C-alpha cells in the first residue's frame, strides 16, 4: 500500500474516524451513498446506533 490512503484522500479526510463522521453528516452525498452501499454488502451499517 502506498503512503497515501486512497480512500481518505478521495473523501478529503485525515482518518477513519473523520470519514465515519463525514458519512453521517453527508447522507445525500453521492460518494457517501456509494460507500454506504458497499459497506452494507459487508454487513456494516454505518447508521446503526446500537453500539452507542
Amino acid at each position, binding site marked *: 500500500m502506498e503512503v497515501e490512503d486512497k480512500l481518505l484522500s478521495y473523501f478529503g479526510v485525515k482518518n477513519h474516524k473523520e470519514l465515519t463522521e463525514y458519512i453521517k453528516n453527508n447522507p445525500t452525498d453521492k460518494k457517501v451513498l*456509494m460507500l454506504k452501499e458497499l459497506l452494507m454488502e459487508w454487513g456494516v451499517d454505518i447508521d446503526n446506533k446500537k*453500539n452507542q
Partner: protein
Amino acid sequence: MTTKKINSLYELFNCSSKEELYLLVKEKNKKVQSLLNYIDYAKGDIGNKNAKINSPEALGKYVISTDLPKDNTATIIFANAKLQPLLLDRVKMNKKEDIINAIKRGLEAGATNTFLAIDSTAVIERDKKKIKEMLDTIDLKVVDIVHYNNYDKSLYSEKGDEKIYLTDENFDLYTDEHNLMNYSKKKEYTDFSRYYAKEKIKNLNILKDINDVKKILKIGYQHNVQEYFGFIAYNKDNNIIKIDELSKGGVNASIVDPRIFLRELMLIENIKGVAFYHNHPSGNPKPSDQDLNVTKMLTNVLENFNIEYFDHFIIGMENVFSFSDEVFGFESKNFKYQEICLSREKVEKHYLNKQAEKTPFQEYEQVKLSKEYGDDWELEP
C-alpha cells in the same frame, strides 16, 4: 497534463464496474487495501463516534470485530490521546517499509497512541519487538498488544495479562470480571495529578493564594518523568482565569514558541498577567542557563504586548523554585507580589550585584551560597 476526474468509488480503485470492485474486496485484494482497512475500522466503531479502547476487554471486542490477524500480518489501531480509534492499518511485520508507511499514515491521522493485534502462533518475537520499538521511538505509544491464538481461539492482552476466549459461534467474549482493568486506571498517576493541579489552581487568586498555587503545582508535577511547560493567566483582580500547558518534552526557545504562547494568551479575555511554570524531571528545581534564556525571552515578549510578567516557577521533587523570588533581574512586574518576594537584604544585594555586573545565574548561585554558608562565601568567577 490532464487529471482524470473520478466519478465513482470503483473508478478510484481502477475498476471498470461496481461488481469488479466488490470482487476485489471479497478477495481481499491488496489493490483495495485502504477500503478493506476502513471496512474493518467501521465494524468496530459502528455508530459510536466516542468509542474508546480503554480496557483490554474493549480492545478484545474491537479486534474480534475486525479481520483477525493472520500469519505475520499485524493490525495497528492508531488512536488519539483519548484512546479513540482513528485509523486501522495492516502491516507485514517483517517488512520495514510497510511499517514506516503505516506510521506515516498514523501520524497523518493525528494519532498519539497505538494498539497492536498479532497472530501469536506465527509472529516472531524479534519482529514484534522491532515494530514496538519503531512506534515508541516516534512517540506513538503502544498502549497494549493483543495476541490472537488461532488454535484455541483466544486473545491475550499483554497489558491486562489476561486471556479472553472467543466462542466459535458468535465471538462473544468470555472474560473473568475480576481481571478486567481500565487503561485509564493504569495510566500513570501523573496524568491525574496534573489534571488535579489545574482544576484546583484555576479557582485561586494568584496573589493571595500564591503559597497554595506553588504547593499544588508541586503535587501536580513533581513526579512527572517528562517536562511540561505551562502558564497561569490572571485578571486585574489577580484571580486566575486560565491554567494550561503549552508544551511538553523540554524547555528551550524552539519548544516554547513565543508565537504559539502569545496566540494562546491573546485569546484570553481580560488577561492582565501571566506566570509560567515547568517541572524538572530530575527533581532538582535549580534553573539551567537555558531556563534563564527562555524566561528572558518570555518576559521580553510579554512586555511588548502589555501582559504583566508574574513569575516563572520550576517544580522539583521537594521545592518550587521562583525566578521572581530567587533570581535577580527577573523580578515580577506585579509590584505587590514582588514586595512579598524580595526581602530588603535581597534588594540590597541586587544593587550590589548589578554594580559587579554578574549574570542572573551567578547572582542566584551567590544568594544560595550566602543562605547556606553566610555572606563570606564568594562564587568562583
